[in-house]
Structures are given as C-alpha cells and as structure tokens.
C-alpha cells in the first residue's frame, strides 16, 4: 500500500465564500472512503494566508497572501492509502471539489 495526498483546488472566489459547515457532499465522500482515509482538512480562505520566503542572504521575508498567484487555490487536502495510482485516482475522482484535485504520492522516509 502507498500513501497519496489529494490536494483540493477551488476557484479563489469560491474559496473565499466557503461556508462554516461541512458540505454534505464531502461528508458523503468521507463516509464512502472511510477505510482509505488517513486524514484531511479544509482550509480557511486564501486571504488569511501568510507566506514566508527564504531570501539569498539566508534570512526570510514574511508577506501577506499565498505562495503562488493562481486562479485556483488549495482549499484543503485528504491523505489516503491506496494499492496503486489507479486505486488512488478512483478515490480522488469522487472528491466533490470545485475546480479539481491533484494527486501526489507521499515520499517515504528511508
């Protein structure tokens, strides 16, 4: 079994107007794939993000906003366990995300 991270992308505007309660579609997704789910969170709106960037002098600069400017922003994630990429993609296709998701294998420490 391998671990995969499902990054959930949303339109920036949708992410900003996200409600307080868990969307019933997500509730249903989590129930259906409970056995594969290792964890997951929903994030607050992008406007609440803060970025820390390393500069050339070895210092850091702290700025308001997200690391990369983009129309679609990360709105949350699920960490899952699956036999292979096909099994992971089957689960990821069920995520009721606005824009879509990105599936990344989790690197195993050796």
């Amino acid at each position, binding site marked *: 079994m*391998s671990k995969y991270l499902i990054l959930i992308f949303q339109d920036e505007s949708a992410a900003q107007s996200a409600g307080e309660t868990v969307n019933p579609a997500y509730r249903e997704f989590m129930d259906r794939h409970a056995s594969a789910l290792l964890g997951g969170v929903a994030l607050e709106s992008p406007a609440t993000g803060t970025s820390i960037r390393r500069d050339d002098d070895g210092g850091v600069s702290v700025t308001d906003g997200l690391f990369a400017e983009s129309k679609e922003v990360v709105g949350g994630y699920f960490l899952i366990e*699956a*036999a*292979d*990429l*096909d099994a*992971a993609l089957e689960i990821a296709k069920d995520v009721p995300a606005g824009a879509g998701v990105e*599936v990344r*294998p989790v690197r195993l420490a050796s």
Partner: protein
Amino acid sequence: MPEGASPKAASAEVAAAVAEAHRREWAFVLAATVRVAGDIDTAEEAVQDAYASALATWGARGIPSNPGAWLTTAARRRALDLLRREATARRALPKLVEPEPPPVDEQADAAAAIPDDRLALIFTCCHPALAVDTQVALTLRLLCGLSTADVARAFLVPEPTMAARITRAKKKIATAGIPYRVPDARELGPRLDGVLSVVHLVYTTGHTAPFGADLMPRDLAERGHELARLLRALLPDDPDVAGLLALVVLTEARRDARVDTAGDLVLMEDQDRSRWNQRGIAEGTTLVREALRARPPGRFALMAAIAAVHDESPSWSATDWGEILGLYDLLAEIWVSPVVRLNRAIALGFAVGPAEALVELDDLAADPRLARYPYLAAARADMLQRLGRSREARLAYEEAIILTDNAAEQDFLRRRLETMDSTS
C-alpha cells in the same frame, strides 16, 4: 585465409538472428521480465544484457529454436541477479528483512510457460497520468525497442532531452505507483481508447510526418502498423481494435501511389489506382465490417469505413461522396473535433458543392484551434479555386504554404499555385 570465412559467416548469421529477435521479441521479453523484476529500469537493463549475451552464446552453441523463450529466460535470470546484488548491497542496513526473490523456473524455457505480459506493458506506457507525448515516446522505446536516439529523432528533439523525458516517465511510473496490469472491464474502454490513440499517433506521425524533408519516415509508420497488429492479436474480439487496424491497413494499401518517382506528393484524385494494394484493401474491408458491428461504431471504425469507400472506388469521379458525408456526420456525432468538421466540410464540397463547403470552412476559420492549421487554408484555396475566385484562392494557397512545415506538402501547394497562375 579460407578458415576465417566460416566463423565470419556464422557470426553474421548470429548477428542477423539477434537483430531479428530484437525486432520481433523485444516487447515480449521485456514485458515478461518486468513481471519478475517489478521495475521497468531493472528489466530493461536485464533485457539489454540478455541480447548482448545472445550474440556470444548463440555464436558458440548455435541459435536456439525459440529465440524469444531463450532471451526471456536469460533476461529473467539476469533481473534476479540484479535484484540479489541490490539486496546484498542493502544488507549493511540493520534488521532489514529482504523477501527472497522468487525462484527461477527452470522449465520456463517452454514458451507456453511464459505468460504474455505485453498488454500490461502497453497499458502502463499509455497511462493517462503520463503526458501524451511521453506515452508515445515510452511506447516506441519499450514496446518497439527503438533506441532513445531514434525516439529523439522521431520527435525532432536532442537525444539528451528525450533521455531525460524517458527517465522522468519511468521514475513517475515507479514513484507514483502506476500499476503494471491490464485495467479491469470497468475501466478498459476509456483506457483502451487512449492506447489506440497512441498507436494511431505513431502511425500517422510516420505516415504524414508534419516536419522535415521526408514525407514518410517509413520506420515509424511500420512500427505503428505492427503495434496495431499486436493489439489485434492480443484483443481479437474488440471492435475498436479491429477499427484501428482496418484504418491502418486501408491507408497502407494506398501507400505506393502516394508519392511519384520524383518523390512528390500525389493527391488521391491523381493517384494511379492500379498501384493500390488489393490484398490490403480486402483485409481492411473485412476488418471494417467487423468493427462497424459495435453500436454505436467507434471513431476508428468510422474513419476506416471512410478510407474503405475511397479504396473500393474504381476512380476519383466514381467516389460515393454521399456515403462519405454520411460517415463524417456519424463521426462528428461521437467525436467533437474541429479537424473532423474540416474533413466533413471537404466531403460536403464534393457531395453538394464548393459554395456550401466554403460556408462551413469560413465558419471553422473562426476556431482558434485551427488558426495555424495548414489543411484548413489548403481546403479553402481548393474550394475558392473551384468557384473561380482566383485572387482569394491564391492568398489561401500562400497562407497554407507558410503554415505547413512539411517540404513535400509545400512543394505540392506551390505546384498548385503555379498551375493557377499559368491558367488564369
């Protein structure tokens, strides 16, 4: 020295046998070795070593009766050696329990004992998690056994660029866990469609070669043809596979008539139909009938059916354009693509008239996806010429010449333009 001649002749014979086995057995040997090695890179190294040892061993002991089985056994043994060596290197790590590699089946020399894993290899190479260009490159490298240099040449990129792309793809397969298996019945349809697209792309890249001075890099077209035949052998009951093979066979049947003795492109209109391969046409039309049995028929079956109407027509003027237009209508229903609409418009020009086709083509010209597509400009030029609108036709030909990067097609368009100038 007469004694020297005989081993030399023998070694030439062995080299030819190894080359032949490379061409015919590479995919089978590699696919069977991946199953044992559990990793494409290790398998490739083992298969390359097996081919190298075949040169020496076959020279000393004679060419085996079943070269594919010999090579598979040798490659699988070598893969296990490589895995054991890796395991030994890892033994320095504390308390790491290495699973015993599976024992080599000494009876595996019998060809029947080796399962055919080529289909699994095809589906791994054509996995949708890989970019289409990468799928084509991996298919040429792993299924067809082309060297990285040859794959790079086919894509017109420098060899190190292609080597890096293939390495990255193999790393993704291993790291992301792209499975090595034939998808189950539920996923098979869409996944097979991806495989067929890749094989079709290999064939058309060789057939039309939208680049360079060579109209037909024959090797790529032949590899595409072989892949279509391999899929047909592995999935004999699939109508879409039959459709793809039909399309390839019916296009190949006209191959010899496509260029004249000077190497210039000849339009189907002007081709010497006695040079069309009747055996290929017979095989292709039988396959088309089988492919069309699917409801609704797939896109390759419909494209093949269109090719079959041309192939069976005794002359250009006798072409059944109504039938072709009807097939394009069906194709446009299942495949929303501006290129399909373009070809349908051309058929409309012959079935109904150039004015009706021009309305369609002008409408298509607004599609940004076709903005740099030379065949749209060429089709407009042809319809305008037939309507007697020479000035506009000339502009459209000039646009088409600028947009195409295929030297043979450029020459063809220039000749059309010159003919216009001399007759107007």
